């Protein structure tokens, strides 16, 4: 027995025990496949996250003579114009964030805690804005509430009918701060909704029952028990929503021009685009981008690493059953009215765009026509194909790569991996303007290391890296639901890391990967703030064509392009949903 050699690999013979593993390679990296995968992740993160961020920082302090200078930052903070840009951003974002929280909480409370009718309908409708690009919502608002919008035309006619001296007093024109705030609230409140409904359904119902049992009224319980329990969730979703609001480009560009709180100035993200694409001032554009980055990063770090530890409720917890009848009828029906009104508004946004696509001249002549659709399909044929190919490919790459990275970070972890994880998550926290501009600077010839200007590759890589964090996060949380012992069992039975990953981990994560793909695909199709810096005459995109059509006031074509965008994302969504049916099933079972 002693001299027998078995099939086991591994070092033969006895050896003296040696010191603890301090000086050796981390155990995870001793598997060649794992080491190679880590090498790939490191390369991608360095090239597509660190390098563009670094170049944008350098560009903002680069002196034309070759030295370094802070002159642009001084200029920003001493110029009334730029400061007003900053104030506009803060005011609009602050108000839109507050409204988003109220709406999100209202929907979440109505759906999780009451027995209102139409709850299924509300749940579906509240997610619709997530499928639509922000500027499309702004555009739909123009169709509804612009000068020639349906509602304002109707109000004008009503004013005439009433014999008012100035029939236009009844109109509520959407252009201005209120329009931007409305558009951004509609765009971002679903995020707050998701956070609140997860938090509300994972609060232990016994806490509220205990409060009631001790004699507390509904309002007292809400004020002293429920809301305080939700505070961490509310705070972190407020930060998140504010961050997205502050870096938004679409609504300010479409609805904001010259009519914001400080009317001479725009908002930060559109201003960065103006500086680059209008004035070719790369230095100032990147400076604004950096100014946008700092608060975003702070918010991200605060939300991600500080608040999570303070949360009272586990967001991934199993939803618990609540007694639904305890909410007073007055509260219930107020919530119902709110949800119904918002839902109708959201649906009318979609309907008005569809109507706009098939009517001759919006606000003037509502005859049916195929003309806009024909123009759109013909003029933007290449853009549509580009968008589908680049978003499809980018989303597949992002979902797979994100999942692989999530697997490495959770299952093959070692000291220092948290830093890599944090860096890989950065594209999620960095505003689109920053990521787009970063790519334009890093790969656009201003730094000569890699030049990809005008290629599809640069768009693909940008799509990929910006939505990869979603695969990383959802993969990570799905892996936390899967008992690691399942993978240990595979290793125990002789499966090498790659085999185990492909045959066990990957199939178990199928539904999650599909989800990451869908989310990535939708975001890539509708993205504009990043790719606006990266498109070229040879590589146009559907979202950019749509934006240009809105900008040029070609509302019919814009509506037709919107319909094309909505339909194509919807088709992909349905196909993937169908395909993942089985996948979702077995996840529920295990």
């Amino acid at each position, binding site marked *: *027995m*002693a*001299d*027998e050699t*078995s*099939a*086991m*690999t*591994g*070092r*033969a*013979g*006895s*050896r*003296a*025990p040696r*010191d*603890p*593993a301090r000086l050796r390679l981390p*155990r995870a990296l*001793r*598997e060649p496949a794992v080491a190679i995968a880590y090498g790939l992740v490191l390369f991608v993160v360095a090239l597509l996250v660190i390098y563009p961020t670094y170049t944008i920082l350098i560009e903002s302090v680069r002196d034309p003579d070759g030295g370094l200078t802070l002159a642009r930052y001084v200029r920003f903070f001493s110029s009334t114009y730029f400061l007003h840009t900053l104030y506009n951003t803060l005011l609009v974002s602050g108000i839109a964030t507050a409204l988003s929280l109220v709406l999100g909480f209202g929907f979440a409370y109505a759906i999780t805690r009451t027995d209102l009718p139409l709850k299924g309908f509300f749940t579906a409708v509240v997610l619709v804005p997530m499928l639509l690009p922000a500027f499309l919502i702004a555009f739909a608002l123009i169709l509804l509430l612009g000068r020639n919008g349906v509602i304002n035309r109707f109000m004008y006619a009503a004013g005439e009918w009433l014999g008012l001296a100035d029939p236009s007093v009844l109109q509520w024109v959407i252009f201005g701060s209120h329009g931007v705030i409305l558009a951004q609230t509609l765009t971002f409140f679903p995020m707050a909704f998701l956070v609140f409904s997860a938090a509300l359904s994972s609060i232990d119902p016994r806490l509220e029952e205990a409060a009631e049992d001790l004699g507390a009224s509904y309002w007292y319980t809400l004020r002293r028990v429920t809301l305080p329990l939700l505070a961490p969730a509310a705070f972190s979703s407020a930060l998140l929503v504010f961050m997205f609001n502050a870096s938004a480009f679409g609504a300010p560009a479409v609805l904001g021009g010259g009519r914001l709180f400080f009317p001479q100035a725009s908002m930060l993200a559109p201003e960065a685009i103006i500086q680059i694409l209008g004035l070719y001032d790369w230095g100032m554009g990147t400076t604004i981008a950096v100014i946008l980055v700092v608060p975003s990063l702070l918010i991200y770090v605060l939300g991600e690493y500080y608040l999570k530890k303070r949360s009272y409720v586990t967001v991934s917890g199993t939803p618990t059953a609540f007694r639904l009848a305890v909410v007073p009828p007055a509260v219930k029906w107020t919530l119902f009215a709110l949800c119904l009104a918002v839902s109708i508004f959201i649906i009318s946004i979609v309907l008005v765009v569809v109507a706009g696509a098939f009517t001759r001249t919006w606000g003037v002549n509502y005859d049916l026509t195929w003309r806009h659709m024909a123009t759109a399909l013909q003029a933007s044929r290449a853009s549509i194909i580009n968008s589908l190919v680049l978003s499809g490919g980018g989303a597949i790459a992002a979902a797979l790569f994100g999942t692989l990275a999530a697997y490495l970070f959770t299952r093959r972890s070692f000291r220092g991996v948290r830093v890599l994880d944090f860096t890989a998550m950065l594209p999620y926290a960095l505003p689109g303007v920053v990521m787009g501009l970063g790519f334009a600077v890093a790969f656009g010839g201003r730094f000569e290391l890699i030049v990809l200007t005008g290629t599809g590759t640069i768009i693909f890589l940008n799509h990929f890296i910006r939505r990869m964090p979603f695969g990383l996060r959802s993969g990570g949380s799905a892996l936390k639901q899967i*008992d690691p*012992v*399942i993978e*240990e*069992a*595979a*290793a*125990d*039975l*002789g*499966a*090498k*890391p790659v*085999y*185990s990953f492909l*045959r*066990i981990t990957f*199939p*178990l994560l199928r539904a999650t990967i599909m989800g990451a793909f869908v989310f990535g695909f939708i975001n890539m199709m509708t993205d504009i703030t990043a790719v606006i810096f990266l498109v070229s005459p040879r590589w146009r995109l559907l979202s950019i064509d749509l934006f240009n059509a809105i900008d040029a006031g070609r509302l019919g074509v814009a509506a037709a392009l919107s319909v094309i965008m909505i339909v194509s994302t919807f088709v992909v969504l349905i196909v993937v949903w169908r395909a993942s049916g089985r996948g979702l099933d*077995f996840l529920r*079972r*295990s």
Partner: protein
Amino acid sequence: MATTTLRLESQPVRLEGVTKLFGKTAAVDDITFEAEAGRLTTLLGPSGCGKTTTLRMIGGFYEPDAGSIHIGPKFVNTVPPHARSTRTVFQSYALFPHMTVFENVAFGLRATRVPRGEIGPRVDEALDLVGLTGLAQRSSGQLSGGQQQRVAFARALVTRPEVLLLDEPLSNLDAKLRVHMRGEIRSLQQDLGITTIYVTHDQEEAMSLSDHVVVMQAGRIDQQGPPHDIYERPATRFVADFIGTSNFVDARVESVAADVVEVAALGSILRLAPPVGAALRPGESVLLVLRPEHLHLQDPDTSDGVGFPGRVASVAYLGAVATYEVALDGGATVTVDNPAPVGAALRHAGDPVRVRLEVDRVYVVPRTDSDTIRRSP
């Protein structure tokens, strides 16, 4: 489970001075033992004693921080799990939820590239072995707890491991099935002659299954040996307390000789067998271990053997036995298990009694718990 012709090439497992640190705490602290080839060794201890950590080091899921692990002649400290000849049956079974029973059992064969033609027959043989013939196409979610466990065994055994590792395999089954499976595991293990290391916190399970028991506490081994040795001659207070029930009575060493030690307890001098392991010094405080079933209640005026007067404090009638709490006149209170007598002969609270000891079944253990005299790591 049926008998089989399948014999496995069993190997002994040897751990020497193995230590595993989690941060600065030693989960396993300098342990040494050998699991002999073809025999069943149990790691027994309360939760947190380091028994599962030890098993995971043998399986390759943790790497020891010090010491060595050998499987047969091979040093395996740094060998990853997939390259070891050990197979684990996990506490939760860890069946692959997206695979059928057949695919689960075939997994280890496919992963190690066993020729395609061999897989079917070997899986069938393994399923026969554990009594699951005909369930190959079930999905793993459609099985009862007991069936899932059989799949886990078949999945481990089909690859012909040199060592089988069982991590509390019965803890998820109900009490009746647990006793039944215990018997099946033992006969399967003996039929296959496979080196098996079994982790449990259930002393009854350990006693009934094992060739060799390793009792662990706070990362260390308190005592090891065959089950009856552990029970009959506990080396520490912890072992005496954890395995079976014991009364502890304060005593003082009077004199120590080669094969006998004299102690003063309850006002008498007792001549007892010296303890395993520890050397005693005259004058040292020690504890006497008195098993409740080795104590006998007598009428107060009886005088055979060594006995102490006392009074019944309470009685619990359990059917087969009656358990008495007796307050001895010397001050201590002891638990006594006696066969339950018929009706009227039952003693009652307040009755004066005499508690007789079986002197050859009274053990001395050091007074201090071994963990309190340990050097911190």
